[in-house]
């Protein structure tokens, strides 16, 4: 399989997972009042200086939410950030609490499934003793790149 065929096959897999879960994703994303009450229920948020990138709803909106809105068409750079969000910044401990009943871990797990269709998997360099420079997140939570301007965006 050449590169473009591979990319096409990946995109198809992503769309299949998205389509299968479309209605649920839409309902759950839409129900979120962006109230941020879930923040303090996540021990990772509490233990990382209240960095918003560890907040449950932030992780969902900026991984699953973006994949859903862009129908899976996101570039490598954004995939890398999503990988940080759903693997590095969440251990799926299912302790998060949302007053509206949104099942955040379920949605993060779904984001992981979607990322796997793009060949992006979980890596835990920090648990393997890698030096900090190798796993530090080098992006600002307010400056998510625009996937339309990312040259690697998959069509």
């Amino acid at each position, binding site marked *: 399989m050449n590169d473009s065929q591979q990319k096409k096959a990946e995109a198809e897999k992503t769309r299949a997972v998205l389509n299968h879960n479309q209605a649920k994703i839409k*309902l759950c994303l839409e129900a979120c009042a962006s109230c*941020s009450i879930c923040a303090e229920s996540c021990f990772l948020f509490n233990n990382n200086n209240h960095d918003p990138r560890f907040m449950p709803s*932030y992780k969902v909106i900026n991984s699953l939410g973006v994949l859903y809105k862009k129908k899976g068409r996101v570039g490598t750079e954004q995939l890398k950030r999503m990988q940080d969000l759903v693997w590095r910044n969440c251990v799926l401990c299912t302790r998060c609490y949302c007053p509206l009943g949104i099942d955040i871990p379920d949605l993060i797990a779904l984001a992981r499934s979607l990322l796997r269709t793009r060949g992006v998997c979980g890596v835990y360099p920090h648990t393997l003793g890698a030096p900090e420079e190798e796993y530090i997140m080098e992006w600002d939570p307010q400056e998510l790149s625009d996937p339309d301007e990312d040259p690697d965006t998959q069509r």
Partner: protein
Amino acid sequence: MYEFVTGPLLWISFLIFFSGTLYRIRRLYSLTEKREVTVTPPGAAAPPAAAVSAEERKLNLVVSFQNSLLGKHPVMAIVSTIFHICLFAAPLLSQAHNLLIYESWGISFISIPDKLCDVLTIIFLACAVFFLVRRLTVPKVIAVSSPYDFLVLFITAAPFLSGFCAYHQWLDYKTVLTAHVITGEIMLVAIPFTKLGHMVFFFFVRILIGGEYSFGSGRRAWKT
């Protein structure tokens, strides 16, 4: 204009609100199914409850309170509760609304004095300002806010703001009253189709879907 917005447009809004809400409930039903997995296997007796001393019970109560929304986010819990109570109480119990309902159908709910309704409206608007300021200043809230969140807050607050102006006869009464009716209709229509649909989502999910935080039977689960 006023005749049109209080006539046909009102009926259309009610129709969209009720059918949209029903559609949302149906959708939630179709996305979930009866839960098969139970904690106790069928036929087996539930495990006997362990003996709990009075002290333990007290400690459990304290810990569950500390972990509750009221314990963790007291300000948010109180403001949000007051906001939502006023949101329903002010329009449903207002004397002016009940008079209109009575004139149309000869029925009415209990109503509260105009002065009290005015107070509820002011409290509601104060809560809305609290949400707005929070959304503009608290970093974690900023991180998940989009223009959509501000719009939704505005759609919710607009009928109260215009109702307040109408009651106090600020600006041109007839125009303000028309604006009040229209903003109210926009809010009704928006409830089933925007983030405000959390009204249906909340009751459905937290009562019917099983989970650690469900209030009710939790007999349903999301389909996979």
